[in-house]
C-alpha cells in the first residue's frame, strides 16, 4: 500500500485503487424510499396526506366504475338493473351507453358495410410513418410512405381510384422534374421545374380542359371573380377593377422579384415571382374560379376530375363513395388531427426558416403570419372556415367543410410549430452554419443536411406538445356543427333513451384521447433517448 509514501511530502502512487460499487443506502429501492418519500418529517407528513387524498378519490370511483352495468338498452333499463342488483339509488356506472353507441362515437355516420375502411386507413397511416421515423429501415420503403396518403384518401372517401392515382402521378412527375433539374442546375431551378410540371399537370392554366372558362378567364381566373365581387360592392365601377387588379398583382410580383434579384439570387427571384403570380392569378387551389361543388382533391386539381371520369368509363375501379358529412366520431377527429399534423410540420419548418431569413420581405411575411394566426383563438378560425369563407366564395359554390377545417387546423398548428422549430434553430451554435457554409454547401443543402436534423431533434418535445394540443383541439369542431365525439355526446344525451347520462360518455372519450396522446408522448420520449444515444 502507499500509506508509507504518504508519510513523506514526495509521493508517488504505486497501485491504483479499483472502482467499487456505492454503499447499499445509495442504491435501488432503499435510496428511493429514503430520498423520495421519507427524507424528513415534512416529507413524511406530505406522503401521508397524498396517500389519504388518493384514497378519497379512489374510494368512490373504483366501486362505481367496477360495478358498472354493461348490458342495457336505455338509461331507464340501466337504472332498473342497478336497483335490482345493488339496491335503490346505488352509485354505479352505466357503461351500457358505450356498448350501445360505440359505433357512432367511433365512426359517425360512416356506412355500416364499409366500416373496415377507416381502421385499415389508420393502420396504413401508422405503417407509412415508420420508414420516416426509423432510420434503420430500408430507404426504399419511403416510396411506400409517399404513396400512402393517396391510398388512405381513397380508402376513406371511396369513389374511383383514378382520381388519387392521377394526382399521385402528377405529383410524382413534378418531384421527378425537381430532382432531375435540381441535380443539374441547383435547387432553385429544380423548384421552378416542379412548379411548371404542377401547373401543366393540374391547374389547367390555359383553361383548355375545364369547360366554361373563357380564354382570358382561363389564364387569370382569379381576376374576373374578384372583379365581380368588387363591382358588386361599388356599383358602376365594373370596368375599373379588372385592369386595376392585374396591375396590382403584377406590381407585387415585380416588387418581390426585383428585391430578390438585387439580393443576388436571380433563381430565387424567378421562383418566388412565378409562385406569387400563380397564387395571385391562377387560383392555385381553385377555391374560387371553378365552381367548387366537388371539393377535396377535385377542387385542388381541376384537371383531375375530367380525366379520371374518362378513365373510370374505360375501367371502373372503385370503392363505394363516402361523403365527408358521414364522417364522425373518432374517425373525424383522427382524420382531421393526423392530416393537420402531417401537413403542419413542413409548413411550420418553412415558416421558421422564413422568420429567420435575411431577406426582409420573407421574414416580415412569416413573422406577420405567425403572430396573426397565434394571436387569434382557434375557434375563431374555425368559425371563419365555416361561415366567412362562404361570403367570399361566389354564390353557388360549396367548398367541403371538412377540408376547410383541415386547412384551418394546419395553418393554425403551423404557426406554433414554426415558433418551436425557431427555438430549436436558435439553440444551435453559429458554428454549425459556418461549418456548412465553409464547405460550400448551398443554403438548402446546409439546412436539410446539417441544421434541420439537429434543430428538429432539439424541438421534438415542443413539436409533440403542439401535436397533442392540435389533436385535442379537433374537438372544437363540435361547435361548428360537425359530429366529432363531443358532438355525438351531446346528440346521445339529447336522445330519449340516454337523457341524463354524462360521466360515462365523457370518461370514455377522455380515455380514448388519453390513449392517443399518451402514446405520442411516450413515443417522443423514446425518440429523444434514441437520438441522444446515437450521437454519443
Amino acid at each position, binding site marked *: 500500500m502507499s500509506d508509507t509514501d504518504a508519510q513523506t511530502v514526495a509521493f508517488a502512487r504505486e497501485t491504483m485503487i479499483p472502482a467499487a460499487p456505492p454503499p447499499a443506502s445509495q442504491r435501488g429501492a432503499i435510496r428511493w424510499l429514503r430520498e423520495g418519500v421519507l427524507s424528513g418529517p415534512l416529507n413524511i407528513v406530505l406522503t401521508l396526506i397524498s396517500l389519504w387524498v388518493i384514497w378519497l378519490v379512489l374510494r368512490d370511483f373504483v366501486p362505481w366504475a367496477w360495478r358498472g352495468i354493461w348490458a342495457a338498452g336505455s338509461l331507464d333499463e340501466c337504472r332498473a338493473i342497478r336497483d335490482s342488483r345493488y339496491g335503490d339509488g346505488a352509485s354505479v356506472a352505466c357503461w351500457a351507453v358505450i356498448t350501445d353507441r360505440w359505433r357512432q362515437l367511433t365512426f359517425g355516420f360512416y356506412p355500416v358495410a364499409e366500416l373496415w375502411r377507416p381502421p385499415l386507413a389508420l393502420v396504413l397511416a401508422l405503417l407509412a410513418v415508420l420508414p420516416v421515423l426509423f432510420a434503420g429501415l430500408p430507404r426504399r420503403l419511403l416510396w411506400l410512405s409517399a404513396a400512402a396518403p393517396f391510398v388512405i384518401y381513397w380508402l376513406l372517401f371511396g369513389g374511383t381510384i383514378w382520381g388519387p392515382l392521377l394526382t399521385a402521378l402528377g405529383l410524382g412527375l413534378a418531384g421527378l422534374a425537381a430532382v432531375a433539374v435540381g*441535380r443539374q442546375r441547383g435547387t432553385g431551378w429544380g423548384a421552378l421545374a416542379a412548379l411548371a410540371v404542377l401547373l401543366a399537370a393540374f391547374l389547367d392554366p390555359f383553361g383548355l380542359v375545364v369547360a366554361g372558362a373563357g380564354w382570358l378567364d382561363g389564364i387569370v381566373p382569379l381576376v374576373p371573380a374578384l372583379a365581380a365581387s368588387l363591382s358588386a360592392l361599388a356599383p358602376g365601377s365594373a370596368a375599373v377593377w379588372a385592369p386595376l387588379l392585374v396591375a396590382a398583382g403584377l406590381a407585387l410580383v415585380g416588387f418581390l422579384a426585383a428585391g430578390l434579384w438585387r*439580393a*443576388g*439570387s436571380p433563381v430565387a427571384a424567378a421562383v418566388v415571382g412565378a409562385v406569387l403570380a400563380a397564387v395571385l392569378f391562377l387560383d392555385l387551389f381553385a377555391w374560387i374560379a371553378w365552381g367548387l361543388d366537388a371539393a377535396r382533391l377535385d377542387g385542388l386539381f381541376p384537371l383531375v376530375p375530367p380525366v379520371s371520369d374518362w378513365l373510370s368509363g374505360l375501367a371502373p375501379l372503385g370503392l363505394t363513395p363516402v361523403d365527408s358529412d358521414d364522417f364522425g366520431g373518432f374517425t373525424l377527429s383522427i382524420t382531421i388531427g393526423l392530416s393537420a399534423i402531417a401537413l403542419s410540420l413542413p409548413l411550420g419548418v418553412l415558416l421558421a426558416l422564413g422568420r429567420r431569413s435575411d431577406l426582409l420581405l420573407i421574414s416580415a411575411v412569416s413573422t406577420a403570419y405567425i403572430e396573426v394566426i397565434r394571436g387569434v383563438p382557434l375557434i375563431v378560425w374555425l368559425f371563419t372556415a365555416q361561415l366567412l369563407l362562404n361570403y367570399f366564395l361566389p354564390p353557388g359554390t360549396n367548398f367541403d367543410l371538412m377540408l376547410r377545417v383541415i386547412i384551418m387546423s394546419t395553418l393554425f398548428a403551423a404557426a406554433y410549430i414554426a415558433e418551436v422549430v425557431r427555438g430549436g434553430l436558435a439553440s444551435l*451554435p453559429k*458554428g*454549425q452554419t*459556418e*461549418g*456548412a*457554409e*465553409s*464547405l*460550400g*454547401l*448551398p443554403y438548402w*443543402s446546409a439546412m436539410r*443536411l*446539417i441544421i434541420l*436534423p*439537429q434543430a428538429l*431533434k432539439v424541438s421534438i418535445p415542443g413539436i409533440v406538445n403542439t401535436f397533442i394540443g392540435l389533436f385535442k383541439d379537433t374537438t372544437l369542431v363540435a361547435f361548428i356543427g360537425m359530429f366529432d365525439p363531443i358532438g355525438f355526446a351531446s346528440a346521445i344525451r339529447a336522445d330519449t333513451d340516454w337523457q341524463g347520462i354524462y360521466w360515462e360518455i365523457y370518461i370514455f372519450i377522455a380515455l380514448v384521447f388519453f390513449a392517443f396522446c399518451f402514446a405520442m408522448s411516450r413515443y417522443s420520449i423514446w425518440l429523444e433517448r434514441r437520438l441522444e444515444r*446515437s*450521437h*454519443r
Partner: protein
Amino acid sequence: MTDAALAPAPSTDVAVQIERMNKWYGQFHVLRDIDLTVYRGERIVICGPSGSGKSTLIRCINRLEEHQQGRIVVDGTELTSNLKNIDRVRSEVGMVFQHFNLFPHLTVLENCTLAPIWVRKVPKREAEETAMHFLTKVKIPEQAQKYPGQLSGGQQQRVAIARSLCMRPKIMLFDEPTSALDPEMIKEVLDTMIELAREGMTMLCVTHEMGFAQAVANRVIFMDQGQIVEQNTPREFFNNPQSERTKLFLSQILGH
C-alpha cells in the same frame, strides 16, 4: 526546423488578392485599408492582439464575413454578393475553426464525405475512399465510425482538417486552430499542419503558436486595430521587429 526543410519557395501565381479592403461592424471600423497578396504555396501566419481583426480578415476570404469596401479576389473569382461565386470560392477554400464545428449528428466518416457528395457530386464510395485517405493522413482512420462527441479535442480538430481536405481545397484557412485545445493535444494538430505545409498547401493561419510560425511560415503578418502593422519573414519578424507595437507584442508573448 528551418524554412529550407519545407516545400520550395512560393510561385508568382496569385491565390488571394485583397485590395484596399474595409469592413465595419455597425459603427466600428474593424478592418482598415487591408492590402494583401497571397501567392500559391505561401504559408502565412497572422498574429496580433485580440480584437485586432485577424480572424475577421481570414473570415472575409471565404465570405463568412462580408466586406464593405475594396476588392477580394480568391483563385480568380471576385467575392461579390453573387451567391454562386461565393459557393464556388467556399468549395475551393478549406477552413478550420477554433471550435472545430464538426457536425455532431454525423459520424466522422459522414462529416468528411458530406460536402464532396453534395457539393462536388462525387459518388459515395469514391468519397468514402478519399475520406479514409485523409483520415489516415491525420492518423485517425480507426475513428471513422465514431461520432465527434466521442473524440478528444485534438482528434476532433484533426477530423476537421481532414473534412476540409476531402474537398481538395486549393487554399486552407486556419482560425486559431489550437486555441481551444489542452496543451497535450496542441502538438498533434500542429504536426498535421506542418505536414500539410510540407506538401505545398497555400495556408493562412491565425495563431499564437510562435514556434509554428518560425518553423513553417514564409511570412508573418502582425495586425493591430484592424490594420496590417508589419509583415516580414519569420526570421526578420522575430529577430528584428521594426515597429514599436510589434516589439511590445513580441515582448508580451515571448517574455516569460
